[in-house]
């Protein structure tokens, strides 16, 4: 059983983080990228061609994370693989001991730098969750037996910040029914929307059925903020937030303050199981933010215990 599964089952607070994309540099590059945040993070996401830009494959990076002595969460998107390839990558992950899987539909090819590519979408996100659960049940999609069956902690994502808002929690419930046990929520720059999602999830019991992990993104420049606002599908950055960074004497400090405010707000929501951090540069931003939020390093949390309510 993975650390993430053990902690989520015990309802312990978890910290996950996105490993920046890898484009070469060998195992040393993976280790260099994860080093600054290593003390705080329970599991690192190995992303799957984010924003439809090609990088090292999530399976290869997840194996590298294991070799570096940390726990991976392997993302899989439906955009680039048909069901046979998805099953092959899941089974490939299993033989290496990669258990944490995050199933996504995926940004469209038109969001990336190779928009002429064929989009696959043979399955959709909820179907991929059910597929992974089926493998875990000891059979391929065809019904062919797998012995021994692999073990996974299957998760997914949901976007609280994009329409249809009132339906997003029902979609989370659909993913829970399909077999998801955690959801890493998309970055949301509008606290009111995250609040609404978390409240409805709490009131309808959805946050009891799967662990909800809001994402916090640490940006550094007004340009970066504008890029996210205009080019990352499904993330809406309010004009005021962009202006706040543009007019600040030091953009990096202001971006950090915004991330801190959003993270504090997220921690105060009912049913929050942990936080997922995304920082696009290899630096100590995530460690610094955890410290400011009062989230102790992993070993300390495991020794002394920690609950999010203490921090707020």
């Amino acid at each position, binding site marked *: 059983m993975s650390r993430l599964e053990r902690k989520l089952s015990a309802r312990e607070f978890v910290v996950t983080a996105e490993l920046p994309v890898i484009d070469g540099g060998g195992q040393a590059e993976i280790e260099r990228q994860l080093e600054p945040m290593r003390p705080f993070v329970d599991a690192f996401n190995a992303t799957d061609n984010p924003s439809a830009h090609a990088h090292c494959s999530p399976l290869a990076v997840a194996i590298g994370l294991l070799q570096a002595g940390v726990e991976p969460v392997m993302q899989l998107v439906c955009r680039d693989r048909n069901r046979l390839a998805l099953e092959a990558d899941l089974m490939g992950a299993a033989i290496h001991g990669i258990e944490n899987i995050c199933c996504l*539909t995926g940004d*469209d090819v038109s969001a990336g730098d190779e928009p002429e590519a064929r989009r696959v979408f043979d399955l959709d996100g909820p179907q991929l969750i059910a597929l992974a*659960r089926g493998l875990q049940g000891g059979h391929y999609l065809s*019904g062919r037996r797998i012995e021994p069956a692999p073990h996974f902690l299957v998760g997914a994502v949901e976007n609280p910040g994009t329409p*249809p808002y009132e339906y997003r929690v029902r979609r989370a419930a*659909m993913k829970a*029914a*399909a077999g998801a046990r955690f959801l890493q929520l998309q970055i949301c720059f509008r606290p009111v929307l995250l609040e609404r999602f978390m409240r409805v999830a709490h009131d309808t019991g959805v946050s009891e059925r799967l662990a909800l992990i809001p994402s916090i993104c640490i940006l550094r420049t007004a340009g970066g903020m504008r890029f996210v606002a205009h080019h990352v*599908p499904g993330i809406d950055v309010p004009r005021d937030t962009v202006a706040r960074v543009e007019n600040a004497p030091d953009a990096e400090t202001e971006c950090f303050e915004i991330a801190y405010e959003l993270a504090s707000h997220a921690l105060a929501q009912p049913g929050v199981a942990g936080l997922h951090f995304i920082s696009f540069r290899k630096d100590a931003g995530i460690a610094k933010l955890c410290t400011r939020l009062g989230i102790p390093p992993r070993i300390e949390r495991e020794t002394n215990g920690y609950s999010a309510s203490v921090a707020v």
Partner: protein
Amino acid sequence: MSIAGLVARAEHAVKGPVWGCQMCGQCVLHSTGLTCPMNCPKTLRNGPCGGVRADGHCEVKPEMRCVWLKAYERSERLPVWRGHIEHLRPPVDNQLKGSSAWLNLISGRDRQVPGGWVAGPDVTP
């Protein structure tokens, strides 16, 4: 042309103009508020992706309203099949593309799923 081919042409003549039918051969219109999910550029069968724009338009085709937003609104207004939109629909059977969903409904072929498909503990088929 075979009978099946004629039926498929007749079906497309009706469902094409009305619903933008793509002839997937396994119609789920009843569970999607009579909105064809195959018009989603990602052909998603189980709800909207996370890329929907703040104005409710499609990530891929900014000029088009998200197919699944329309599906939700319409399914709420339908007097029948309430709640069917919440069901987990199985992966598309690509062997059925171009065939008549009407005939596949009658024969039950459209309800055949792969032997290893699990729909989930609290999802009714």
